[in-house]
């Protein structure tokens, strides 16, 4: 019986071209300090991290993983949001409340639609919570002190954007809960000095919450605000590394 020796896929040129040296998927990865450093350095996603971090940063009770959780929730919301976009049209005027009937069909006829919508909704509330708690953690550990002052300011912008994303998304189901929560939430803009009418019109695309508002907030929710948020996130992560990694122990 002839022995057939299968070629090792990991030795092929294609495989080697895909994974840079030090990758744990590449043949010859050794659990050495050098390969461990390369594993981070030569990977596009893990490159968000430096190759080494201070040991105390691993302590769960220092960071509570809140920044990482917020980022993970943002990724999860992006993925579930893309899924929902396939089945949702932000229309409410011509031909009745299309947005609302799309919501109903997501719940009833889209495969896993209800679960994905639930994940999106609960994840969004959780993200507001985790970003807020992350801010509190950073305050209590004094992590905003020099040279990290500006990153705190970027963080405040990110908190504001998170609230904006959650608030714009709240309108999209186009049910009673949505439009009245938005009506109450935006009514305050009508009290801004000098620009009350303009502020209201800019926010709502009209005098009251209307189908115009729905389209406007949909674009903000799925495109404009996430785009701005990603820009600030990039600066936020980059500054963590440039400012010397995670803040010192207490």
């Amino acid at each position, binding site marked *: 019986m002839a022995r057939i020796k299968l070629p090792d896929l990991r030795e092929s040129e294609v495989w080697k071209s895909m994974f840079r040296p030090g990758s744990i998927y590449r043949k010859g990865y050794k659990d050495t300090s050098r390969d461990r450093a390369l594993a981070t350095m030569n990977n596009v996603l893990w490159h968000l991290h430096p190759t080494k971090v201070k*040991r105390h940063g691993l302590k769960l009770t220092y960071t509570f993983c809140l920044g990482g959780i917020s980022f993970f929730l943002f990724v999860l919301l992006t993925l579930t949001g893309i899924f929902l976009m396939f089945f949702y049209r932000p229309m409410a005027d011509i031909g009745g409340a299309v947005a609302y009937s799309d919501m109903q069909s997501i719940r009833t006829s889209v495969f896993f639609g209800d*679960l994905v919508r639930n994940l999106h909704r609960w994840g969004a509330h959780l993200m507001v919570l985790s970003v807020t708690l992350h801010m509190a953690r950073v305050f209590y550990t004094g992590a905003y002190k020099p040279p990290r002052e500006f990153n705190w300011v970027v963080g405040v912008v990110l908190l504001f954007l998170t609230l904006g994303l959650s608030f714009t998304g709240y309108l999209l189901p*186009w049910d009673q809960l949505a439009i009245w929560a938005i009506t109450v939430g935006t009514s305050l803009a009508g009290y801004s000095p000098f620009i009350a009418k303009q502020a209201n019109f800019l926010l709502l695309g009209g005098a009251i919450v209307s189908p115009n508002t729905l389209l406007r907030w949909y674009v903000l929710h799925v495109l404009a605000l996430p785009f701005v948020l990603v820009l600030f996130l990039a600066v936020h992560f980059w500054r963590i590394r440039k400012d010397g990694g995670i803040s010192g122990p207490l």
Partner: protein
Amino acid sequence: MTWEEVPKDMGVYQQTLDAQLAGGTDRRVAEGRARSKAIRAYQQGHPDEVEERPVRAPAAAAAGGDGAGASAAAPATVPAAAAAAAPAAVGAAPAGAATATVVAAAPATLPRRDAPLPTGGIPAPKKGAPEKHRLLALVPPEGIQRVERQQGDRVNVWPHLLLEEFIAMLILFAGLLVFSTFLNAPLREVANPNLTPNPSKAPWYFLGLQELLRYFHPMVAGISIPTFILVGLAAVPYVDRNPSVLPGDRKIAITLFTVLFMFGAVLTIIGSFFRGEGYNWIWPWAQGVFFEL
């Protein structure tokens, strides 16, 4: 003059070396310190000899020495002439003693100034300024303590941090998945601008502000206070200039933040659970919960 030639106190040398080694110092550094101490001890014991020694330019010392012996006594004995010769010394150092380092010394104890200060690029002392100046001198590597960048206690991101993040992500995702499987997000009847629900509430994170509307003019509750919160938050690192991160040193900052944070949390909870029809006060266990996420 080499280490062998230079007059020194060998008793002090041995004593210092033993003490340094016992303290866990690296042998090379310990020997350097011991030599320096031995020479200084001898010179303190024989001040007259030190005075009589001839003036030598550090360049010569550097060229004549062999690194180890490049006159450990230089900082104490090289007079002001060294200042003029310093640039030459810098140039000569790599040739004579590769590791010799040029440092600035503050020789307040120097007896007199033999040479005028060099004029190129060095500001003349102000009139009426006290008689003091800085000199450059050659110091052999043994005579100085090397400070290297603190590496600190660091661990590789892969696998330590990445595994931790991965596990946190898994736990969170599992929890959220279970929650989403059993709890449906609300979807009420279709939007109707003519039918106002009672009560009408904003999303939960704005309920603190809605609660404030009960006590303040809408302009204050809706515009001034939110603006103040955002600007105030952004200004925190520029207002709090206390460099310490220790909770014990930050009592005011921590108290202030905690009070404001709790204030916001309590207002949000009141707006969420303790306000019912007509946005009037209710007890959630008696009249039920008027709150939807």
